[in-house]
């Protein structure tokens, strides 16, 4: 283990480490702690210049009720779910298929198609913007949830295929060969043999795609505009303009918008990190 385990160090060093740990954490999270405290401050504190002292009283209920009653943030959040959940389902389903095709079969063009997915996954969004927006308008899907979902499914399939394909490659190939010898059809091999083994990959991708899509801001701005379809990231941007310097409300709104992916992360931490660090261990 590197660095050397701290238990083997002198007691003084151990104590220093134990003290440094929470302090560094506190410093690291200052922007977030600031926002969290601001979100429970009464507006009067901000008017009086009490920006980062102890709040004069806790206005948790007041601020959080205010953002839900006086702004469409509840709609925005609902819209985010409407976009995110179908995307997770769609992208994971498509990439189970593509990952299986690229991971199991040897055929001409396999590697080329795989690289197409990988490379496409890294392109800057702006090179897609005008044609995708145009396509969405022409198909009558501009400013609809479906329009946004279709794009997200397509784009996320790139990353998901990379992940699934590598995951399937690591499964024992003999499993598939022996099934073939038994005369099981290709679809049955996929459905009954490989898919059940892919559960951890599916879980990891589901959490990751949820977070990526929930946090998307660019496409939300490009493909939607009304409060009936805008996800919470784009919504927060317009609310920020509306709540000029009402920092207690901006903060409460930010926290509400951040909550679902954060909750997802803490609940599914292991899967999340497994997905994100794919390839970080073996070269």
């Amino acid at each position: 283990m590197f660095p050397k385990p701290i238990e083997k160090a002198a007691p003084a060093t151990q104590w220093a480490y134990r003290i440094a740990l929470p302090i560094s954490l506190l410093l690291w999270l200052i922007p977030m702690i600031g926002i969290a405290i601001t979100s429970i401050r009464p507006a009067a504190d901000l008017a009086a210049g009490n920006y980062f002292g102890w709040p004069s009283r806790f206005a948790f209920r007041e601020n959080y009720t205010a953002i839900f009653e006086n702004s469409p943030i509840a709609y925005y959040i609902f819209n985010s779910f409407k976009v995110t959940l179908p995307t997770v389902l769609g992208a994971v389903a498509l990439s189970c298929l593509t990952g299986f095709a690229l991971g199991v079969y040897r055929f001409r063009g396999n590697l080329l198609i795989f690289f197409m997915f990988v490379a496409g996954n890294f392109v800057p969004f702006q090179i897609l913007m005008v044609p995708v927006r145009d396509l969405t308008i022409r198909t009558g899907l501009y400013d609809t949830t479906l329009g946004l979902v279709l794009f997200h499914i397509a784009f996320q399939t790139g990353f998901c295929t990379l992940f699934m394909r590598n995951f399937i490659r690591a499964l024992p190939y003999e499993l598939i060969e022996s099934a073939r010898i038994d005369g099981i059809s290709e679809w049955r091999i996929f459905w009954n043999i490989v898919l059940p083994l892919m559960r951890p990959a599916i879980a990891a991708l589901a959490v990751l795609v949820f977070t990526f899509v929930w946090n998307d801001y660019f496409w939300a701005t490009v493909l939607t505009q009304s409060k009936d379809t805008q996800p919470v990231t784009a919504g927060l941007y317009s609310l920020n303009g509306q709540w000029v310097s009402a920092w207690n409300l901006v903060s409460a709104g930010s926290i509400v918008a951040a909550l679902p992916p954060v909750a997802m992360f803490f609940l599914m931490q292991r899967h999340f990190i497994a997905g994100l660090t794919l390839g970080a261990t073996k070269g």
Partner: protein
Amino acid sequence: MMLKRRKIAPWLFLAPGMAMFLLYVIIPIGQSIGLSFYDWDGLGEKTWIGWHNYIELFGDDAFYVSLKNNVAFLTLYMLAVPGGLAIALFLNQNVFGIRLVKSLFFFPFVMSQVVVGLMFSWFYAPNFGLFARFIGWLTGTQVAVLADSRFAIYGIIAAGLWPQIAYCMILYLTGLSNISPDQVEAARLDGCKGPQMLWHIILPQLGPATFIAVVVTVIGALRSFDLVSIMTNGGPYGSSRVLSYYMFEQALSEYGYRMGYGAAIAVILFAIMMVFISIFLIRMIGRERSV
């Protein structure tokens, strides 16, 4: 019969995913490149103007400001790699509560960049923001980071580094937990320790983690749209524009839609990104061949 089926099967499995990916990703790249040779307001007729968009671009000061900011982004973002490594080394211990501490350090990455942008706007806000106060206390003068054309882009980069460091940290923590303990012990018996150990024994084994950290950091730096849009809208006076934001502004701004010109900016950004994507792919090809 079986063999024939096995030839068709992969294409059937690929069809739906590939169709979507072609329609929404691959074909649009080609279309954008084509569009960059046209003048188009997004509604009316497209007019072929050849290289004109590019010629105009190369005489456009705003383009150079954006490009310069992209370079600054790319260079300073690289700090996330050693930054992440440093935090990972600091946290790679087995004390009580360390798992929670690691998660909390990673936490900024999970939040939307919109939220990160708002947090840092609050942090930098003149008069009351914690950072502004700190600088005021340190130097005696207040600095409105995001309203000052000298500092705005650096304020944005610093905000972006926060989640990016978290990402690199988690990559390195995973890498560190997979380091072969035998080698470390052997080196330790030989009297190797500290920075020497880090350099000769640990870093070589962290190669894959470093590679991925660099890749995601480059991509993150070139994608930097959200923070610019949230924190400054490219201002003050366009000083914090980056290519991704400038493209958006040209193509969909309130001053009228210049889709062709926007597409030309996007093509330049794409070309820059392609350099890095190619490096990544070449490395991947090498790896696939060796398997």
